[in-house]
Structures are given as structure tokens and as C-alpha cells.
């Protein structure tokens, strides 16, 4: 590999140029805010340009290896704006820019329905700030600058969440999001402060070296604080509560970015902290992450099943997929803590691969959802139906996304779940019986999760796109504009490609992982080539191209054969069999009905709420119901059992504290006297 070819692209100057384009996009769209069309055009074109630069920078950086760090001191003490784009950072920059590219192309058409309703210039400003701050988050190498850009990212995304501010639900979602992310950041700050205490520096490079002498307890505390802090951003259960309401509130291309990549910055930092800054880790770290991952995955998908709001449902799937990624990270931590370096490297590939995969297919799904929503003006999937006829291409892209997220071969979701499974299998054999069990249970959780995810996406796709339209909105929907379809097509192609070229991609990821795991060698991972992925000890072998091609070949040959054999048969189009009644859209299965059986089975965990409304033909007789209405909802267990009591406790405390301000001036002077005497007695005894 002639590395110097990429020197120009993988240079700090190029990186800064990328950021400057985003800055220009942000300021430009703010300046153009009086003209919707121009602001939209400017902001999307700038974002596309910036993303292309970002993608090329990241690719070049990945191919070239490490970029020399570049640091510039600021006038603030301890704060330096230092960037260090190692391969892990480059990978995340790539993911961010790739998704941002497709989302921006999509936005070209999507922004149209905001014209004259909301301020496009502001949207452009925050959109650019958001992307730029995400890129900074994954490249910055100083804890203070990191915290600043991290907060800027939260801030920008907060404004994007409340962008459609005339809906008070969005404001509430934004508040919840900002509160949760701020509390999460408090934990992050705590973690970094502890690191500062141990090392006396906020530079990552100094922390990395300095923490070697820190006590295991301190490291454990830092790890837990980081897990909670970054877990909040990533949407880990039980600190996920902001996610299902915040992601749907934002404009769809922003939801795609938030779900696709923003929550991954939490994953990035978790990897950075637990594998780069903190090691050596301990076994219980891995186990904790595994448990958190299993819970998130399983509960996330169950909540998604009981959801009828399309974007909310997708948001819950983000929680599920974060859980799967966490499983991979948990394995990595457990392996690296016990010296199984090769296995750790392998597991990290699984986590990273799923991170990228989820970024692509979840962004794809959100973009699809955005297309559907802007066509029908509702987020309730019960009001869709039959849209595969009105929006065939959107449907195809959405189907690809659905199949990918359901981990169906030969798409990319399958491969990363396969990797995660394999890591867990290795975990189930590498430890003593006691420590094996978490792995076995996690395998079960993952198996159940992927099955349920498939069920859920049958529900989503079936109810949204198939059968007959259930509302006039769905019946009169129009296919999305060209640019929106382009955005989705881009992501769909990436999703297919990531499945097909699993070997080479894994090799790149293996290199990244090996850089992070001390003693991890990319060479010891076994074959990772275009055709097969296999372990050195032949524990596993798989060939994604073979799966893909055999399915393709079998289908083509089969169709040809059948076509040749049955050319003479006629095909007649007729109404669906209706048992002699008039078949109306109301007789189709609804999303509620579809998920009902699963929800009933898991009602112990899900605690669904049910609201029935029966109307009788004869209210005295009550035997012949005229109409029965069942609304299945999901009872939130986190609010009433954790957050609500916490809030009440704080309110109670606040009310008690309020008594200090009693309004009586005599009491106020008494405070002064008592403080004086108290202090005198305490200090001068």
C-alpha cells in the first residue's frame, strides 16, 4: 500500500477544511434564513460537500493508518484543542459522514415540507453544528475539549429535537432529552474528574499513561460512571427514557442522524474509555456491560413491539441494537480483562461492525419513515397500509432496512449479529462455569431479540406498506421526491455492500480493534478475506458472498425454470377471498392485533396497559356488542418506579428547603446569629 498517496487527504488541513465547510454551512444558512429555498439549498449542499470531504478524509485516514496528532493550546489553562485521529476515530468519522451524506441528500427533498412553516435557516444552522460537533466528539483528544464538544452536540441535537416547537409534545421530549443527557454528562464529568485526579491531566495521552498506577477501585468507579454517562447518550436501559420521545420529535433526517450515529458517540466513548484509557479492566466490567446489553436488547425490542408510532418504534429498536453492540463490548471487556486478546479483538470487531451496520440501516429506516410520514401526515402506523403500491421504491428500501435490522441473511445486520453470537459462544467456553452463565443467558437474549425484531418488522412493514390503505392519507400518498429516494438508495446500497463485503470490512475493523487491545494482533484473527471469514481454529467459517450469491443464483435459476415450465399458464387478477362478506380495510390485521399475542406472552415484563371501550346494541342486555375498541398501550415502568419517586423525593426536599425562606425577618436574623455562634463554637472550641 503506497501510503503517501493519502497524505494530502488524511492531513489535519483537510480535516479542518471539512469542519470549516460545516461552519460555513451553519453560518450561511443562518444568514439566508429569510429565504427558505435558498437556506435549504445552501445548508444541504454544504452538508453534502462537507460529508464527502469527511468520508474521503476518514477513508484515507483508515488506509493510511494513524494521522499525526495536532494540538493547539488555548488561552484557557489545561484546555487544548488536540485532535488525534486514530483508526477508531476515523471509523466513526466515516460512519458519521456517510450517514450525514445520505441524510443530506435526502434533506434536499425532505426540507420542502417545512417551507413557510418553520425557519429553515435555523434548522440548517443546528444541523451543521450537530454534524460538526459529532465529528469533533470522536476526534478530540482532550477531556475538557471533549466535554465542550460533547455538550455542544447535545445542545445542537436538543434544538433539533424541539425544532417543530409548535407541538408541545416535542418541547417536553426536548426537555426530557436535555435533562437526561445533562445528568449523563454529569457522570461523564465525574469520570473525567477522577481521571484528572489520578493523572493530573486532561489530555487523553497523559491519562492513558497515568492511569496505569491507579487503584482498581478507582478504575472501577471511573468505569461505572462512564458506563452510566455514555450509556445515557447511547440509550442503554434503564437510562434510555429520553430516547423514544426525543428521536421521533426531530425532523426525520435528523432522527436518522441521531439514531444512526449520535447515540454511537456514546458507544465510541465507552470503547475509548474502557479499552483505551482505563485498561487493564476487570472481568466484572464485561459482565456488567453484558447484563446491560441483554436488558437493553430484549426490553428494547419488546417495547418496540407494543409501539404504534412509527418513529418511536424505530427509536426503541435503537435501544435494542445498542444492547447488541453492548453485548459485543461486554465480551471484549471480559476477554481483554482475562488476557484472551485475540478473542477480545474479535468481539470488538462484532461491536464495531454492528455499530456501523446499525448506523446504516437505522438511518435508512428513519429516512423511509420520514418519507412515509411526510406523505401521510401521521406517525401512527395504524393509519397506513398499502403504500407499497403508491410508494414502491420507498417500500423496497424500507424492506431492505427491515430485513437488515431483523438480521436476515445476506444483509449486513445478519453478519454483525453472527459476529456477536460467535463472540458470545467463545465467552461461553472460555471461563469457568460461573462466568459462563452470563454469556449463555446473553446468547438466549440475543436469539430471542433477533426473533422478536423480525416479528416487529413484519408488523411494521406489513401494516405500513402491505394490504389495503387504512386511511385516505395512505391511499393518496405520493412517491417521495427523487433526492429523498436517492438518500435512501445510498444507505440501502451500503447496507447490502456491508453484508456482501463482510470479510474485507472485518479486516479493517480487525486492524482497528487490534490497535486498541493490548496484545491484540489482527493476524491472529484467522482468515478475513473477500470470500470467507473463519477463525484459525476453525471454530467458525462463513462466507457472506456465498450466502448472497447462492440465494441470488437459486432464485434466478428457479424463476427461470418455473417461467420456462409454466409459460403457458395464465394469471388472473381477482378480489381477495372474502368469505362472502365485503372485505374492508378494517378487517385487515392491525399493528395492535399483530403484536398482541407477543405482548400477552410477555405481559409480565411489558406490563401493557389496556383500555377497552365496548358499545352494545342493547345496553341493557349487554350480550350483543356493536363495537369494541381496544387500545393497547405500554405502561412505562421506569417513570413510576424509578424516576417518579426520585422526582417526588427531590420535590419533597425542595419543599422542606423552601421553609428556610419563611418570610419572617426575625428568623432571618436568627439564622445569622446561629451561624455565627455555631461557627465560633465549632472552630474555636
Amino acid at each position, binding site marked *: 500500500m503506497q501510503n503517501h498517496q493519502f497524505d494530502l487527504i488524511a492531513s489535519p488541513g483537510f480535516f479542518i477544511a471539512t469542519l470549516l465547510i460545516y461552519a460555513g454551512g451553519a453560518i450561511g444558512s443562518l444568514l439566508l434564513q429569510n429565504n427558505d429555498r435558498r437556506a435549504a439549498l445552501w445548508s444541504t449542499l454544504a452538508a453534502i460537500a462537507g460529508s464527502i470531504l469527511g468520508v474521503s478524509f476518514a477513508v484515507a485516514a483508515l488506509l493510511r493508518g494513524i494521522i499525526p496528532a495536532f494540538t493547539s493550546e488555548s488561552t484557557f489553562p489545561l484546555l487544548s484543542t488536540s485532535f488525534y485521529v486514530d483508526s477508531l476515530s476515523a471509523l466513526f468519522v466515516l460512519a458519521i459522514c456517510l450517514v450525514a451524506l445520505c441524510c443530506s441528500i435526502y434533506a434536499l427533498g425532505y426540507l420542502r415540507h417545512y417551507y413557510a412553516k418553520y425557519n429553515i435557516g435555523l434548522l440548517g444552522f443546528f444541523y451543521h453544528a450537530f454534524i460538526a460537533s459529532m465529528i469533533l466528539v470522536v476526534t478530540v483528544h482532550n477531556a475538557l475539549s471533549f466535554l465542550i464538544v460533547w455538550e455542544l452536540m447535545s445542545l445542537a441535537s436538543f434544538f433539533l429535537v424541539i425544532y417543530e416547537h409548535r407541538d408541545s409534545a416535542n418541547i417536553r421530549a426536548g426537555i426530557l432529552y436535555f435533562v437526561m443527557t445533562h445528568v449523563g454528562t454529569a457522570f461523564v464529568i465525574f469520570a473525567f474528574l477522577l481521571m484528572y485526579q489520578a493523572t493530573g491531566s486532561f489530555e487523553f495521552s497523559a491519562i492513558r499513561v497515568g492511569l496505569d498506577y491507579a487503584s482498581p477501585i478507582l478504575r472501577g468507579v471511573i468505569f461505572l460512571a462512564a458506563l452510566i454517562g455514555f450509556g445515557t447518550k447511547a440509550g442503554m436501559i434503564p437510562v434510555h427514557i429520553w430516547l423514544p420521545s426525543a428521536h421521533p420529535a426531530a425532523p426525520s433526517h435528523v432522527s436518522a442522524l441521531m439514531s444512526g450515529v449520535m447515540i454511537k458517540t456514546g458507544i465510541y466513548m465507552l470503547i475509548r474509555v474502557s479499552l483505551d484509557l482505563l485498561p487493564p479492566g476487570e472481568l466484572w466490567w464485561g459482565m456488567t456491560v453484558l447484563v446491560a446489553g441483554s436488558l437493553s436488547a430484549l426490553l428494547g425490542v419488546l417495547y418496540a413491539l407494543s409501539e404504534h408510532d412509527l418513529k418511536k418504534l424505530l427509536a426503541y429498536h435503537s435501544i435494542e441494537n445498542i444492547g447488541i453492540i453492548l453485548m459485543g463490548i461486554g465480551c471484549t471487556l471480559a476477554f481483554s480483562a482475562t488476557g484472551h486478546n485475540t478473542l477480545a479483538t474479535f468481539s470488538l470487531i462484532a461491536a464495531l461492525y454492528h455499530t456501523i451496520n446499525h448506523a446504516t440501516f437505522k438511518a435508512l429506516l428513519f429516512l423511509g419513515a420520514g418519507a412515509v410520514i411526510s406523505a401521510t401526515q401521521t406517525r401512527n402506523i395504524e393509519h397506513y397500509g398499502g403504500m407499497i403500491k403508491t410508494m414502491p421504491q420507498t417500500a423496497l428500501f424500507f424492506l431492505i432496512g427491515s430485513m437488515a435490522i431483523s438480521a436476515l441473511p445476506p444483509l449486513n445486520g445478519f453478519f454483525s449479529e453472527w459476529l456477536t453470537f460467535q463472540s458470545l459462544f467463545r465467552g461461553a467456553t472460555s471461563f469457568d462455569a460461573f462466568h459462563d452463565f452470563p454469556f449463555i443467558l446473553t446468547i438466549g437474549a440475543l436469539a430471542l431479540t433477533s426473533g422478536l425484531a423480525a416479528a416487529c418488522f413484519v408488523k411494521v412493514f406489513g401494516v405500513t406498506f402491505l394490504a389495503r390503505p387504512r386511511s385516505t392519507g395512505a391511499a393518496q400518498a405520493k412517491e417521495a421526491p427523487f433526492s429523498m429516494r436517492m438518500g435512501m438508495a445510498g444507505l440501502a446500497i451500503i447496507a447490502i455492500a456491508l453484508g456482501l463485503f463482510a470479510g474485507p470490512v472485518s479486516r479493517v475493523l480487525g486492524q482497528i480493534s487490534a490497535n486498541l487491545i493490548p496484545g491484540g494482533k489482527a493476524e491472529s484473527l484467522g482468515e478475513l478475506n473477500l470470500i470467507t471469514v473463519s477463525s484459525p481454529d476453525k471454530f467458525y467459517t462463513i462466507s457472506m458472498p456465498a450466502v448472497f450469491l447462492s440465494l441470488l443464483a437459486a432464485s434466478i435459476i428457479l424463476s427461470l425454470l418455473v417461467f420456462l415450465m409454466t409459460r403457458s399458464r395464465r394469471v388472473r387478477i381477482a378480489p381477495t377471498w372474502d368469505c362472502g362478506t365485503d372485505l374492508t380495510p378494517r378487517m385487515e390485521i392491525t399493528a395492535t392485533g399483530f403484536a398482541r399475542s407477543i405482548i400477552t406472552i410477555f405481559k409480565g415484563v411489558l406490563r401493557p396497559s389496556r383500555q377497552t371501550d365496548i358499545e352494545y346494541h342493547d345496553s341493557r342486555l349487554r350480550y350483543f356488542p356493536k363495537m369494541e375498541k381496544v387500545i393497547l398501550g405500554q405502561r412505562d415502568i421506569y417513570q413510576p418506579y424509578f424516576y417518579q419517586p426520585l422526582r417526588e423525593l427531590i420535590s419533597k426536599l425542595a419543599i422542606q428547603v423552601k421553609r428556610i425562606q419563611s*418570610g419572617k425577618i426575625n428568623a432571618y436574623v436568627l439564622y445569622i446569629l446561629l451561624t455565627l455562634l455555631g461557627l465560633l463554637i465549632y472552630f474555636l472550641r
Partner: protein
Amino acid sequence: MTFITPQLLLVLTTTVFTSAILLHLTKKNSSAVFYYVIQSAAISSLLVIASFERISILLLISISATVAVKLFIAPFFFFRLIKRHQLKFTVSTYLNTPLSLAAIAVLIALVQADFIKPLLLLTTSGQTFILNLSLSTILISLFLIINRKGALSQMLGILSLENGIVSFALSAGLEQSPGLQLGITFNIFVWIIIATVFSSMIFRKFGSMDVTALNRLTE
């Protein structure tokens, strides 16, 4: 220093102290002002005597200003306030008299405690008892502000507190430059005017001088 004999100092600080206690005991506003005048008179004579040593024009001005403010202007304002609003008996307290006295006893006991000892080293006359009395005056005056519900009594409490501090300073032998003394006196003068204006405004707005009526801001 020669002009202040320990005996004289003792007599005067005792007067200050006693009038502070009497401020607690009285039920009539006019007599409270009267006790304050007595207290101020004691302080003023202390100031006058202390300044004999290094008499100067500026010092003379500052002392006469102090005397004027404390002995004449303040009572004048207060009596006018009482007269205008007929405030004979509005002196009410949180604690009744025995309990107030008990609280005062506790405060005086505190002043005798060990931790206050280092302060007593400040004395130049060698009589720690005098400093003790001044400290007690300070605390008792503070307690007066806490205990009383009347605006006038609170004002008197603050002034009495100031007197206590001055008596402490004088008995510890601290002196300020006359210029600064003038500034302080001017401050107190303005303070008395403002406070009187306020209390009469309060009377107009709230119909009484009872500060417990001022309880709307409670958040």
C-alpha cells in the same frame, strides 16, 4: 489613655450593657428610645473622654457629629415617628419576658465560654470583664432584633448593636482616624433617616409597624 480609668470604663460599659437589657424589658416605644439615648450618652462620653488625649479640630468635629447624631438626631426622628403614628405600645415580642431573660442569660454565658477567651486578650486595661460586657451587649442587641416584632425596636437593636461594637472597640483601645469616624457617623445618620422613612412607609402600607406583617415574600 490616661483619661480613661478602668473604673470609668467599667461604669460606662455597664451602662451600655444595662440599657441593652432594659431595651429588652421595656414595653413602651418611648421608653425604649429613652434607653437608647442613655446608651448613646454613655458611648458618647466614652468617645469624648478617649479623644482628650489627642485632640484636633477634625476629631472634635467628628465627635460632635457623632454626639449630635446619636444623642439628638436619632431620638428626634424616633420620637417624631412615635408621635405621628401613635406607637405607644406596639412593642411585641416572640418570647415573653422570662424566656427572653433566660435567652439573654444563655448568651451572656456563651460570652464567658472558653472559645471567646482569645478576644479578651485584646484588652489594654487588663480588665477582661469590660470586654465581656461589650461582647454581651453585641449579642443581646442582636437578640433584640430577633425577638422584637416592631420595626422601631429592630432599628433600635441595630443602633444598640453599633453602640456595643463601638464600646468594644473603645475598651479594647482601638482608635480610628477622625475622618473615618466622620464617615461612619455620616453613614449612621443616613441610615437612621432611611430607616425612619421606611418604617413610616411600612406603617402607611401595612397599617402597623409590626414586621411580622412583612411575610409575603416566601419563596
